[in-house]
């Protein structure tokens, strides 16, 4: 089928009819004929733009800096940013366009797992390298796809015992968003709770549009847990933190979260609603390192003092881009297979988020993980754990043995 597609693509006249011309939202810098094109597909509008905008900014800055430093292999880079408007349909459309029309060397894209799973088969089919740079539930096993975000075995594994120790509690109540990420992550929460001698009193799942947590808060009160763990996602779920504080429960039961802060929850809520919430990610803007301080200076210089706070999603996009760039340099070409092979040679990059190394067996990243506490609209980094392995995905995926695998495993968490 692939050869057929290629032949057609060559035969096809370049003329584009006026019909169905869904052009991208271009941010094109320079374009000489021998530019290396790369594409970013992140939501700049719609419900997910809060996650997407910093990712777009970081990627734009990364390409600008790379070009200022002379480009890659002596060629300039052209970044095409597509805005899928938080609509899954546009993800597939733009991924197809990036791969077939623009013939980009790499696509950095996707926020939700749904968007990733929309793009992944398209890019695999059209032989275009794919980087997914978001924290997610783990399990993707596809040689064409590199996942640089953290997965539960890297973050939740640290977060739960820390919270249990700090708050001196064993009974945990879990609130999770009702979709893949929440379902799978809550299983990991259960696993790590039990491994540390705790119990899960109850796990409740909430559709992403739920804003009324009244009955749930009463249920939590009745269950009397020692700790509440939030795996809530998105704008609607922010109302939980407000309602929780309004009932006065926040002073009584402490909270840890696998998601708080990624959507700037700590900026939107008030200190009395979020102080003391624990979270663990592969990056916090507050991480103290010279590389990070320097990067934030550049970032704010480019996008202004009020630029969106940097999250793991944004920073791993930066790391992802740089890993790809390093691999291209090593391979001496943008050819997809050669770059994949270069990345599989334990390619690593050290940046503002610490050191990120590609694990050749899973195409996930070995990362530095930070544990922090929300404090007055910022995070206070409490501890860091260097070079955490993607043990969850590694349990189900070995691309060295089975390079032709192509699926997302739902990791069977033994609980």
């Amino acid at each position, binding site marked *: 089928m692939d050869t057929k597609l290629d032949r057609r693509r060559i035969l096809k006249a370049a003329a584009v009819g006026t019909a169905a011309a869904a052009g991208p939202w271009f941010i094109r810098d320079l374009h000489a004929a021998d530019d290396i094109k790369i594409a970013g597909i992140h939501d700049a509008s719609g419900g997910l733009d809060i996650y997407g905008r910093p990712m777009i900014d970081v990627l734009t800055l990364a390409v600008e800096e790379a070009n200022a430093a002379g480009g890659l292999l002596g060629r300039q880079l052209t970044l095409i940013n597509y805005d899928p408007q938080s609509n899954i349909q546009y993800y597939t459309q733009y991924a197809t366009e990036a791969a077939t029309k623009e013939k980009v060397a790499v696509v950095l894209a996707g926020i939700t797992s749904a968007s990733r799973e929309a793009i992944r088969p398209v890019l695999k089919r059209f032989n275009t390298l794919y980087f997914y740079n978001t924290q997610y539930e783990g399990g993707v096993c596809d040689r064409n796809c590199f996942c640089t975000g953290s997965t539960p075995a890297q973050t939740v594994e640290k977060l739960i015992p820390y919270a249990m120790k700090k708050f001196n509690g064993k009974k945990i109540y879990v609130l999770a968003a009702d979709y893949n990420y929440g379902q799978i992550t809550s299983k990991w929460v259960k696993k790590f709770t039990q491994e540390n001698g705790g119990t899960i009193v109850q796990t409740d799942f*909430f*559709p992403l549009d739920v*804003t009324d947590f*009244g009955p749930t808060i009463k249920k939590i009160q*009745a269950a009397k847990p020692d700790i509440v763990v939030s795996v809530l996602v998105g704008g609607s779920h922010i109302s939980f933190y407000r309602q929780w504080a309004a*009932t006065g429960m926040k002073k009584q039961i402490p909270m840890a979260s696998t998601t708080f802060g990624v959507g700037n929850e700590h900026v939107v809520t008030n200190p009395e*609603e979020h102080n003391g919430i624990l979270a663990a990610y592969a990056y916090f803007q507050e991480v103290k390192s010279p590389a990070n301080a320097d990067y934030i200076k550049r970032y704010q210089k480019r996008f202004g003092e009020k630029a969106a706070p940097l999250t793991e999603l944004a920073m791993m996009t930066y790391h992802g881009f740089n890993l790809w760039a390093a691999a291209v340099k090593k391979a001496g070409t943008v050819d997809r297979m050669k770059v994949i092979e270069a990345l599989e040679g334990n390619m690593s990059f050290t940046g503002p988020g610490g050191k990120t190394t590609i694990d050749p067996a899973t195409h996930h990243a070995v990362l530095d993980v930070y544990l922090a506490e929300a404090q007055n609209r910022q995070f206070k980094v409490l501890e860091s754990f260097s070079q955490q392995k993607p043990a969850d995905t590694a349990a189900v995926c070995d691309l060295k043995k089975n390079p032709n695998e192509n699926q997302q495993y739902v990791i069977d968490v033994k609980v």
Partner: protein
Amino acid sequence: MDLVVIIILQVIAAVASLALVSVGLAVIFGMMRVINLAHGEFIMLGGYAVIYATRWGVNLWVAMLLVAPLFVGVVGIVVERTVIRFLYGRMIDTMLATWGLSLLLIGAATMIFGNTTTGVSAPLGSVTIGQYQTSLYELVLVVIVVAVLGGLMAILRLTKAGLIARATMQNPAMAASLGISTNTVYMVTFGAGAALSGLAGALIAPLSGVLPTMGVAYVAKAFITVISGGSAIIAGTLSASMLLGSLNTLATFVATPVVGEITLLFAAIVLLRILPQGITGRFFRRAL
């Protein structure tokens, strides 16, 4: 025992909030037979009115009870003058036009305010009932809803404006022949309905946060509640809110929020199958 009390309080709160988000739509539907699908966006505008008023230093209660209803009421009047008044008697067309308005307002709000949840913290703190705690604000909310419905009833029953409104509602042609300007009545009614929606948005803001797309979550529920209630404004809204709100909350307690929502929707379908004219189409027919 405490749990029973707390569940009852939760049910009451749920009924009150359902009645609150529906009453603006009910006024417009009951008086004018117009289904305003931009209702959710009026709620959203009420929320933003509170956010911005408090940012500019207005007292929270003043912002919620005065600024937001006034602002959204004015928006309602503008909408009525520019769009709705050309479409009286064309129910489906008004639905489509207000649907368009809804999209327009969502888009405009996204462009102006950004697609980020903002909010204000709930005032008043919490109260303890036995082993349980609940937000005092939620209880005050119930009192406010009762006051709003009571006030609405009083206006319709006791004032001259109410009489005129009821007369126009019963028989527009007759009212017109008595020298009542139905045009003005409709304009004021639409404005009042919008103001009530704005009030709802303002009162909800501290609980759920404010987002350009927040209306979508309410419009379907309010729509279903109002239609299930039938044509009587207050009795209809109240009876349907009681039925649907308590079913929703109880199912949420027993099972999950999804089951709660689905229970509400199923109840509405069954209700409409049994009583195709809504609850007040069959019972409390003389009520307001």
